[in-house]
């Protein structure tokens, strides 16, 4: 049983300990020592995501993430996962717009095994036409699952493709179907040589591990990689000068709209008042959208969301409003009333109780997240990768706390403007009409 003092909320310290190292070849290391539980989260992040792709090979970052599990000279296909899972590990990876991340959450005693296997697949990855082709088919199935056959996947793709004209955030992380079919093994190998090198890597270990021991292990397994550097890519999306609208027709029971407003990236302080604004609009059941639209049955769903820190994109991201009209509710009427609700907020501002509620809910959410070693690691790593400063993870609670009613009003007026808005509506059609419109992919 824990000692009494350990059960006193006032004695709790939310600070994440951060110990940074850099190897001579440029590889960066972050250790988050935390003796609470006998587990570690080993994370290998590469600073390459869909934003580093070019038209014609979209989706290569994510497809490559799959290929990293296909084996090496000494490991069979998926044996990487099997060996670590057999130690109790949670093994997976994900690709975002800005980075590709691999992780193993496992008992602390297997730290070295995880690091050695990560080094093995980086140094000795074995790819051939056969396993490349198999994995291409897997990813095409994933694209159909997430995008083509899902209720709103293609609508969301059209939103980003319409809101961004210049910035690579305009294509989906999973890539366009035709690009996935066109990509070659040679494209993948070139991509691998260019981006999977120490200059673009962050290795993070959170949990029951000594910083010096982690440093020594990373040095042992990754220290002999030839030096590399990180390409900093700057792309600026031109400010939007007028509302853009698009229509997507598909078989659906529901009418819906997705609206996106250009906002800020993770490193910008406005992300915090934007989070509070999204919370006031649609978090919980006292919020404005629930009370005005969802509870009375006008909208099946009405959500305002911006990817929360540390998931916010590195470059200016979209604040998205997603409205699904309830059966019988005409979408144009719902849309008009939705903009009227926003205009009211932009006119009158927010009340003190709703500001206090939103801030408390965001605080609670953050505290809850800190229970998980994996998430603590991600907070530090993603702030490091996208905002250049892992210690921002430790300022999250204070940043939410500092948001004022005036901040919320300002960001509501500054970003949620009609000229800065892209709206995609989903118009339901019958299966016959859908077929006449041509194939979906």
């Amino acid at each position: 049983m824990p000692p009494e003092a350990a059960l006193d909320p006032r004695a709790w310290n939310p600070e994440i300990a951060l110990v940074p190292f850099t190897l001579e070849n440029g590889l960066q290391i972050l250790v988050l020592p935390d003796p609470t539980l006998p587990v570690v989260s080993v994370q290998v992040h590469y600073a390459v995501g869909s934003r580093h792709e070019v038209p014609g090979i979209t989706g290569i970052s994510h497809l490559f993430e799959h290929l990293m599990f296909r084996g090496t000279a000494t490991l069979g296909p998926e044996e990487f996962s099997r060996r670590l899972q057999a130690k109790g590990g949670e093994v997976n990876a994900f690709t975002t717009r800005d980075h590709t991340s691999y992780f193993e959450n496992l008992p602390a005693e297997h730290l070295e095994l995880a690091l050695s296997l990560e080094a093995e697949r980086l140094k000795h990855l074995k790819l051939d036409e056969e396993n490349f082709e198999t994995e291409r088919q897997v990813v095409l199935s994933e694209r159909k699952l997430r995008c083509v056959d899902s209720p709103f996947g293609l609508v969301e793709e059209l939103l980003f493709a319409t809101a961004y004209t210049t910035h690579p955030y305009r294509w989906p992380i999973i890539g366009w179907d035709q690009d996935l079919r066109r990509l070659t093994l040679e494209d993948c190998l070139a991509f691998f040589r260019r981006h999977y090198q120490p200059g673009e890597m962050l290795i993070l270990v959170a949990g029951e591990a000594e910083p010096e021991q982690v440093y020594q292990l990373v040095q042992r397994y990754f220290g002999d990689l030839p030096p590399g550097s990180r390409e900093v890519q700057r792309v600026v999306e031109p400010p939007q000068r007028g509302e853009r609208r698009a229509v997507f027709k598909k078989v659906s029971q529901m009418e819906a709209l997705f609206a996106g407003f250009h906002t800020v990236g993770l490193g910008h302080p406005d992300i915090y008042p934007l989070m509070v604004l999204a919370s006031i609009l649609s978090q919980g059941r006292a919020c404005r959208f629930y009370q005005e639209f969802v509870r009375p049955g006008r909208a099946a769903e009405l959500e305002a969301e911006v990817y929360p820190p540390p998931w916010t994109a590195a470059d200016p991201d979209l604040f998205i409003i997603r409205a699904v009209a309830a059966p019988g509710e005409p979408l144009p009427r719902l849309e008009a009333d939705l903009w009227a609700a926003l205009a009211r907020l932009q006119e009158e501002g927010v009340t003190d109780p709703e500001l206090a509620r939103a801030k408390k809910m965001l605080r609670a959410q953050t505290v809850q997240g800190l229970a998980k070693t994996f998430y603590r690691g991600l907070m530090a790593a993603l702030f490091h990768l996208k905002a250049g400063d892992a210690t921002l993870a430790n300022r999250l609670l204070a940043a939410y706390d500092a948001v004022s009613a005036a901040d919320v009003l300002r960001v509501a007026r500054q970003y949620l403007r009609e000229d800065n808005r892209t709206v995609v509506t989903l118009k339901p059609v019958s299966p016959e009409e859908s077929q006449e419109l041509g194939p979906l992919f």
Partner: protein
Amino acid sequence: MAALAALQQATLKNGLSLLGVEYPRVPWISLAFMCKRGSETDPPDKPGVADWTAELLTQGTRRRRQLELAQDIEALGAALAARGGWDATYVHLDGLAEDMETLMATLAEVALTPAFPADDFALLKERRRAELTQAMDDPREVANRTFTRLFFQGAPYGHAVRGELARVDAVGLEDLTAWYAREFVPEESVLVCVGMVPFPRLVEAAARHFGSWGGGGPASPAWREAPARLAAPGIYLLDRPELTQSEIRLGHLGLPRSHPDYFPVRLLNYILGEGGFSSRLMGRIRSELGLTYGIRSTFAWRRAPGPFVISTFTPAGNTALAIKEIQRVVQEVQEAGVTAQELAEAQSYYIGHFPLGLETPRALIRQVLNIGLHDLGLDYLARYRERVAAVTLEEVRRAAQAHLHPQRLVTLVVGPAAQVKEPLAEIGPVTEFPTAESGFF
């Protein structure tokens, strides 16, 4: 670690059982009130009653209307959620540990003194109608719901927990109040608390807020039977011409949670289809053949025998091939069992993963609720690893022979009939379903 999972128990004077775990990691508390009767006690032809009752509890108490209740809860940063499930119905309240007293009082108010307001019931019904309509747009939901209804043929587990679109108007407020009056009784309820609070304080607060509750009753007898009839084995097809991928479900009747073969079957199923890349199904259907992004097999462990289901999806043209390969894998495991290495790796996965499964309040409360629901004993977590370790290869082999039934599989395909029907007919007779519009849902 053992300390973290120390499960404590108290019984209040009215017979209500309290299970608690002291949790020192973050200043959080998760509270849950569990009534040990769920959607299996929905009146015949009134699917959704248990779940709607749970939802209506959150829509107002004798003291506070919905908005006031939500405002007060969210002012603490807390979250209230209630739902029906198989075998039990849950009211969850999560928040910061410093607010334990208020949270405990609020949970008691919500669970024990509902107002069941008629106007809120009318709104709830319309929200459910919208939600159930929207569910028809999600192929995975359609497959899950259709399989449940098809497979169980009207038995108590044979409908969707959230209700069925065609039966929305059959459910009245009086059904909810009657269900609540019958099923919410102290002797068949459990209060679970995981948080940064000493257990004696929890007992004291629980006694104050729950101790004098008398409840209704008599509760429905606990349902433990195998259904009298099930769908005939074979292939069933629900035509969705607009889909590019087929959703596939294959299943037969599984086992009750109380079955003595629980541990051998869990290990068996990890190897067959639950162990991600360590599983036979993932290895064959995804890694070798590239037919899908994901496949999994699940035994639904309930009070009465739940379904054993294999779930996957594949581009429509692969449908018949995927089904044949799945059947072959199940057959192989059923006939030949698993290897000693597979069993050893499955055992070390569950043993090594054990601490990761106790890391967060959410993960812990899930485990404790399960212990309370199935009366697994206060020493369940402490003995879990030794029980996993004690399973022998021979026990798994016998479990495979006794509990996998490849000849009894009921196979459902939701996909474009024009593409899949003919190839499916080569496997066996195909029964076509009425379309979604004809009221099957």
